[in-house]
């Protein structure tokens, strides 16, 4: 005769099993997240679709600035050529004026010798000279032309900014492309349902066409520093 044991279930520890209420709440939350994920997916799709357009626009900016810069350089070259021609013409004119001044001095002497016999001619000649028959050229014309040429050269040199900004823009495009690639991966994972940890995007390897750290600085310090490095290298490797 065995005693029938009453099977008594051990009481569940408090909180081990979800209640019906908490289950309902959980289902509501999950139901709310699903449309949110859909919304995120749509947003990501739209963003990854816009990025190539942004990159293309940056590329267009680079092409447009290069085209405009080359046009400016063409104009500067033509301007410099014209200034050179004017300078040459001015130099010829000055030489001619000096030759004329020398001839006039000779005439001055000859006419002065007629002072006693033909004072009327002397008087007429002196009046003519006083009226300024010799050509007078401004003393600093050549200097002005030189200054114009130098300014044109300076403008040309300043246009190096176009190359430097092109490299900076290429750096930005590179970053945009890496963001696009990573967003595309995240998007794919949302579609496939796999978890992808959202870490900082790993940029694709740079292709070496640009220096994203290029800077436009007119300070002579950068070149001075470079010169010191070069000199130190040469001293150290030339025995």
């Amino acid at each position, binding site marked *: 005769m065995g005693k029938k044991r009453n099977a008594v279930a051990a009481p569940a520890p408090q909180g081990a099993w979800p209640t019906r209420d908490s289950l309902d709440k959980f289902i509501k939350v999950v139901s709310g997240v699903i449309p949110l994920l859909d919304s995120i997916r749509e947003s990501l799709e739209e963003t990854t679709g816009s990025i190539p357009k942004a990159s293309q626009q940056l590329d267009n900016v680079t092409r447009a600035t*290069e085209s405009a810069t080359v046009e400016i350089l063409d104009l500067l070259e033509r301007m410099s050529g014209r200034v050179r021609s004017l300078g040459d013409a001015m130099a010829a004119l000055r030489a001619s004026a000096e030759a004329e001044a020398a001839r006039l001095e000779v005439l001055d002497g000859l006419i002065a010798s007629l002072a006693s016999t033909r004072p009327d001619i002397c008087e007429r000649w002196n009046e003519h000279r006083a009226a300024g028959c010799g050509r007078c050229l401004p003393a600093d014309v050549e200097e002005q032309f030189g200054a114009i040429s130098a300014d044109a050269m300076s403008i*040309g040199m*300043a246009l190096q900014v176009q190359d430097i900004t*092109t490299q900076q823009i290429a750096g930005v495009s590179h970053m945009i492309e890496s963001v696009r690639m990573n967003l595309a991966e995240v998007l794919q994972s949302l579609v496939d349902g796999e978890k992808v940890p959202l870490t900082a995007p790993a940029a694709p390897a740079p292709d*070496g066409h640009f220096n994203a750290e290029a800077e436009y600085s007119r300070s002579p310090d*950068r070149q001075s520093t470079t010169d010191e490095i*070069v000199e130190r*290298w040469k001293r150290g490797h030339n025995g």
Partner: protein
Amino acid sequence: MANTKFLVVDDSLTMRRIVINTLKSIGFENVIEAADGKDAVAKLLSEGADFLITDWNMPEMSGLDLTKWVRANGQFAEIPILMITTRGNKEDVIEAMKMRVNNYIVKPFTAPGLKEKIDQILKTVGTGAA
């Protein structure tokens, strides 16, 4: 020296124009150009040059790789090379010097600065010093 034939290498058309204009303004009229290292190699082999001015960052073949090729090529191994680049870090300068560029200019360069470097190099090459 005025007849020195320069090969200017840069993927930026703007920069090539500026360097060439500057060379002409300081008396060097004999200049040819290339858009990258690979184009430069082709120009060297077909037209030759006495002096190379090159950028660093270029497609196809960088200025550094071009320098390496030139220094390894018997025919052109000793031609002067001047690097003109936006790269101004100490490590970059040293890397270029290790490849045996003769001198190094950081963009944006100045006309007097370019003339000074070219004159120094031509003088050094003329005396046979390193």
